[in-house]
């Protein structure tokens, strides 16, 4: 689904955010990208979303080389993926329903079908009863769920998320991950940037660690899942939440 090939991203001023990054994400995968601030996680997602263009190297998304996507075609390109942000990026002068409907309105989907899809998306994130509310009246976790509903309402094949649990407490973070996992189970490819190693370690997903603009390591946590079970797909398993000392407790 995503092929990043020897990508360099240099910003004006000479700062290099990515230094020859190469990675692949297969269709139907749920992959986490981790790393410290400045490691290049957000830049990677921006390159995929065509918010930025690579200085050199290739970014291929669903068979499309982003270099060949002209400025005019960027909106149509972006409409093929869902995006989730740490700060939700909701429109606070509109209702929850209208926020979720926005990608469909932009895509020119018929109103009847749009209404049905919005309600289905809100139902999936458990916010159907709050469709008329303003996002400001919702908790941070609920706002993030609105953001997720907006990202998946047009049934994209790919969802990218930049620190989607960054502002959430551990319980809410886990709830958000469960939602992501449900989408992944129906074939949606997810690429999630996060620094929440404790949470990621519970998921059994591939993790790509970035450091200084390069891939540092690729880890798979199947062993962890085999030992403790998967708290994401099985809510009966208690989440493991990192304590203040960096250890974990149940």
């Amino acid at each position, binding site marked *: 689904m995503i092929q990043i090939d020897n990508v360099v991203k240099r910003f004006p001023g000479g700062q290099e955010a990515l230094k020859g990054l190469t990675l692949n994400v297969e269709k139907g995968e749920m992959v986490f990208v981790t790393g410290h601030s400045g490691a290049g996680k957000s830049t990677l997602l921006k390159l995929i979303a065509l*918010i930025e263009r690579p200085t050199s190297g290739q970014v291929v998304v669903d068979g499309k080389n982003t270099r060949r996507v002209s400025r005019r075609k960027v*909106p149509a390109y972006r409409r093929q993926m869902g*995006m989730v942000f740490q700060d939700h*990026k909701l429109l606070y002068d509109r209702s929850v*329903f209208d926020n979720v409907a926005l*990608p469909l*309105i932009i895509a*020119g989907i018929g109103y009847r079908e749009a209404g*049905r899809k919005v309600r289905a998306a809100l139902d999936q994130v458990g916010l159907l009863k709050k469709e008329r509310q303003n996002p400001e009246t919702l908790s941070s976790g609920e706002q993030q769920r609105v953001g997720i509903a907006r990202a998946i309402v047009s049934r994209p094949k790919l969802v990218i998320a930049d620190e989607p649990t960054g502002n959430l407490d551990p319980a809410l973070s886990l709830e958000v991950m469960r939602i992501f996992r449900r989408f992944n189970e129906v074939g949606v490819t997810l690429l999630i940037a996060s620094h929440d190693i404790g949470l990621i370690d519970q998921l059994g997903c591939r993790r790509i660690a970035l450091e200084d603009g390069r891939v540092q390591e690729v880890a798979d946590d199947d062993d962890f899942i085999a030992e403790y079970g998967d708290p994401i797909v099985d809510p009966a398993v208690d989440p493991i939440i990192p304590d203040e000392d960096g250890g974990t407790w149940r």
Partner: protein
Amino acid sequence: MKAHSEALAPTRKSSPLGTWASLHISNCKGSLGRIVRQPFASLLTVLVIAVTLALPAAMLLVIKNASSLSRSWDNALDFSVYLNQDVSLTEARRLKDIIEQRADVEVVTLITADEALDQFKADSGFGAALDHLGDNPLPHTLVVRPSSANTEQTVLLLNEELGNLPEADFVQVDTEWVQRFLAILDMLQRAIGIGSLLLGAAIVVIIGNTIRLDIQNRRQEIEVTKLIGASNAFVRRPFLYSGFWYGLGGGLMALGLVGYGLYALEEPAARLAGLYGSTFTVLSLDLRESLTIVGTGVLLGLTGSWLAAARHMRAIEPG
């Protein structure tokens, strides 16, 4: 936005045309709603546009009324050809017919010597004194009205040719001051045309600046909308509707201002005309002129918002 919620109600039909139309209606209503929610700022903008539109409209009305007034002076363009005393009435009538056949002449009126004397008696108040005159000292006169197709040069040529007629004693023509007046009106009209262009540019700048501020205030919303795949055209549309509403509001208010000005002038103008024994009444804007003012407002509003949106929208990209 509430309109979106309503538009997305599942009972609505969802044909592509219906979707497109509903989206436009939603943008249209949304833009009007935003303007109404900021009544003071919006009113100021609309008022400035209205005054800017009303100025040339009022000036054009002045020209229109002055032109109307000058039409009653058409006879001032006539030539009075005073014939020699020895020209008989029959000859005068024959001469009238000959001159009337000219392409550069619209009509010729014969005022016989007797008619002229009667009129003079009536107008001068010397009726009794004139009765004592043995012979009528006045000649037959031909009043020649040049056709409207004449230029200044052909009128001068006509004047010369009428003066050269052997039957003509002299030709009186007093058109200079009317021509000067018409020339002044023409010059004013052109000046107003140029002024209108400048004022139109001012409206484009005013609306463009208002839209620019609106775009800056909604920068975050634009970024989010672009981030999830909105094209520039999609993002631009509500701002074009804002420009449309500002232009429409300004045009309608300009009509109101001009209308009020005419109402205020109507009675004093009628009184002044009455003092001169004239039936002149102030002309107001007709339907076509009214529609032109409103249409100009709308067009300038759309132009201003388009320019501002095209210029500033491109600069806003999600980062």
